[in-house]
């Protein structure tokens, strides 16, 4: 029995696999790609402009199979006379294409130029790519059964060129993301101001009649001293007022520890999973309650000495020395970034918890309108969200996801990244744009 098993194993070892014939290219992200991600080309479809004339299908088939055969084109316009808009199925050349993973013969590859191509020599027309693609963009030719997929006409898409109504546009991604530039500038300045120039200013600052305090620190003060000092309460108004107006703007744009985590995230691979019992967004409220309760019990602020925001503000001493204990706290919590982005902010930060309660009744909200989203295979908004609150599955289903403002840090990465302008800031009372995509 043992011998037979040995033989079988040996046979398996000697077998030539697909991996030997067509090995998958290694997914390596270069250092520069962390900071300047490669731009991905794509064709944007605007249903408001599309008249359903089918010129795109016509020129596409003409270029690909040298015949005008709209049914064999790599783009299909769905004309629904029941609704006042058309819809186009076309390859989005996704950043992480599911069709590539699904293809059993590895006939589909994503090129260095970002274009996803199908190699017809290897394609067996099984249709698994069509099933895997959320857009169903690899289209099966009704006459030959072959799979037709957009190759973007090697950079000069004919559908875009000939579309009479301008409903199709070629994009290489947004070249200049002004929100990103502004956010990084504000974050850098805030970090320098709080951690280097005016050390420790986050915890408490008094400049003339104006005073500023951390709301969590004030809560602990009140709990530990048993007295409510109105000046302390008023000093939290700047931050709470900002949160009421702009959500957790502080977390996304100003917090020095958040900025530090963003920097760490750029160079940290996400290789380790966070244990599921730690993944509770309610944990931060527990920590806040614990901090207040502990302060009450011990008569002093129990969380402030280990607060990472305070620690990072106090790490750089006035004499130019670095504070080892504070830096240790910061480094330890930053180490959590190997699991997810902004883990501390997502699950544990009690300052964030206070701001979240405030943001719940704030003036603004972020909406992602699935109707404007148009292409639900893109999900770039979900990819860039540091708080992981955009439900990619809902977008894939064509449903507008609910964005909890208690968790949103108003970093506006989704708005900046969305190529369709579907992610927007709205006032709380404004009717949400989104409807669901209906096919």
């Amino acid at each position, binding site marked *: 029995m043992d011998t037979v098993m040995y033989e079988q194993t040996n046979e398996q070892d000697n077998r030539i696999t697909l991996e030997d014939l067509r090995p998958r290219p290694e997914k390596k992200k270069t250092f520069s790609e962390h900071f300047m991600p490669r731009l991905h080309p794509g064709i944007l479809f605007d249903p*408001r*402009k599309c*008249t*359903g*004339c*089918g*010129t795109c299908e*016509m*020129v596409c*088939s*003409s270029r690909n*199979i*040298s*015949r*005008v*055969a*709209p*049914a*064999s084109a790599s783009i299909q316009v769905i*004309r629904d*006379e*029941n*609704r*006042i*808009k*058309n819809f186009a199925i076309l390859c989005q050349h996704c950043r992480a294409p599911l069709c590539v993973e699904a293809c059993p013969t590895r006939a589909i590859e994503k090129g260095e130029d970002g274009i996803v191509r199908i190699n017809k020599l290897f394609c067996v027309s099984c249709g698994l790519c069509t099933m895997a693609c959320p857009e169903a963009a690899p289209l099966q030719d*009704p*006459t030959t059964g072959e799979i037709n997929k957009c190759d973007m006409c090697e950079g000069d898409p004919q559908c875009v060129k*000939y579309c*009479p*109504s*301008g409903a199709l546009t070629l994009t290489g991604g947004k070249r200049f993301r002004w929100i990103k530039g502004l956010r990084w500038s504000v974050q850098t300045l805030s970090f320098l101001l709080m951690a280097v120039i005016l050390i420790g200013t986050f915890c408490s600052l008094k400049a003339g009649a104006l005073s500023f305090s951390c709301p969590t620190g004030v809560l602990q003060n009140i709990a530990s001293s048993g007295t409510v000092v109105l000046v302390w309460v008023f000093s939290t108004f700047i931050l709470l007022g900002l949160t009421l107006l702009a959500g957790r703007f502080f977390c996304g744009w100003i917090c020095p520890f958040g900025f530090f985590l963003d920097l760490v995230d750029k160079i940290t691979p996400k290789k380790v999973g966070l244990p599921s019992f730690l993944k509770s967004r309610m944990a931060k409220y527990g920590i806040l309650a614990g901090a207040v309760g502990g302060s009450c019990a011990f008569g002093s602020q129990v969380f402030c000495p280990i607060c990472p925001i305070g620690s990072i503000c106090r790490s750089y001493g006035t004499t130019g020395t670095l504070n080892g204990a504070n830096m240790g706290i910061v480094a330890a919590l930053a180490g959590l970034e190997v699991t997810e982005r902004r883990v501390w902010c997502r699950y544990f930060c009690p300052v964030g918890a206070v701001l979240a309660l405030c943001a719940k009744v704030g003036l603004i909200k972020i909406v992602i309108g699935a109707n404007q989203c148009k292409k639900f295979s893109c999900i770039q908004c979900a990819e860039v969200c540091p708080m992981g609150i955009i439900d990619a599955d809902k977008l894939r289903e064509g449903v507008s996801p609910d964005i909890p403002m208690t968790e949103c840090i108003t970093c506006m990465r989704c708005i900046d990244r969305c190529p369709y302008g579907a992610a927007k800031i709205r006032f709380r009372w404004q009717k949400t744009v989104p409807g669901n995509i209906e096919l």
Partner: protein
Amino acid sequence: MKLFDNFYNMKVGIVDLATSSSETVSLNKEMAAGKTGGSAINENLFKKYEEDAPLVIGVGPLTGSFAPASCLAVATFSSPRFGENLCHIPLMMHTGPGMKFSGIDFLVIRGIASSPTLLNIERGRVRILSAEDLVGVDIPESVRLLKREMTHCRSILLPGPAAENGVHCASLSTGLSGSLDKGGLALSMASKNLKGIIFCGTGGLAFNEGNRDYNETIEKRLFPGKEHKNEGFLSMLDVIGIENDLRNIVKKATWHNMACYHCPSPCMSSVGFKWRDPGNNSRVEDTLFLSDHLGFLALAKKGGADAFPLSKSCHRFGLDPAAVADTLPERGSLAESLDTVEKISTAREKTEIDGTPVSIGDVPAETHALFGGGIPPIAPGELWEERVRLSMILGICPIFLLRFPQISQRDLLQFLTGNEADLQLLEQEIDSIAEK
């Protein structure tokens, strides 16, 4: 016909509904000599099978090609509404390309089927199917059923329940969008017990590769700006002549411009509108596809904003909105009007709608009736006739050619050939067809 090898499948489908048989034959010289295409060949085929009271549907050589607005198929038959005279109805949207890419260029439907029948054309073959399920079913439901059953269907022609009931003012529907049929094509189909025709359109044709750039040159001449004009149904109403007050009323709806196959200048629209349903007294958000300019205008003149639900109701039963508008009271209540439309759809008698062709603008009644009575009179009489005839022969949308008289006959013929001798020959052919 060698000239047209790249432009035609060179196939004619012949269906005998009486015997439930179909065959596909080659488009030969006898059928096509000196006729170029479209309505001219249709007429030849009609005469050939005249004894069987045929219904002929055909495309032009440019249908489905790179020529602008190459959407047209033409149905030729003896009109039950216009005194059994020969009538050519333009079938737009994607009907022409759908038919051509289904592998046949002309379809001759002879005889009367013994039971409700549906024709499905795919890859050069005509399949005769039972259509028992479509009996008495309104148009939206029929479209839904057919789209569910047929994997590929590029274009659907449906006569609708009104034609089934023998209503004199029935009108054919291409999908859900109605049509310019005011000559009784729906009645003609219904009289053959034909419940619908489906063009699968899964094939293709090579055409002339160089035409893509030639088309771009033509379009640049028409629209020098970067983006093409995108005017839609409402702008067509302006051209026909809608009163300002009425325009302001109908403009309030949400308009989305829609175009037929490869048309750079849309003249149709899908419309989102709200109305109060008198049945259950609730406010309803609804949509409607508008393609019949004269029909909608007639309804709007009678009912203002009520024209939207009334048009929807006409589309549902397959009724000609212009004829229906004649029977409606001036500014009557919506409930009454909807009730009237429903009653008309089941009324076998001719009611007050006699269907006699009328002259519109300065287009004579006979000429207007010859081309189905639905093409808006947006050009002077003689020019109108010349342009419409040209469109029917070549397979280009007549409304497009009427709107852009700067596209000459020669411009269009150059899509077929660049050879001067051939061009002259074609021009002679078209002139002789017009003379006859």
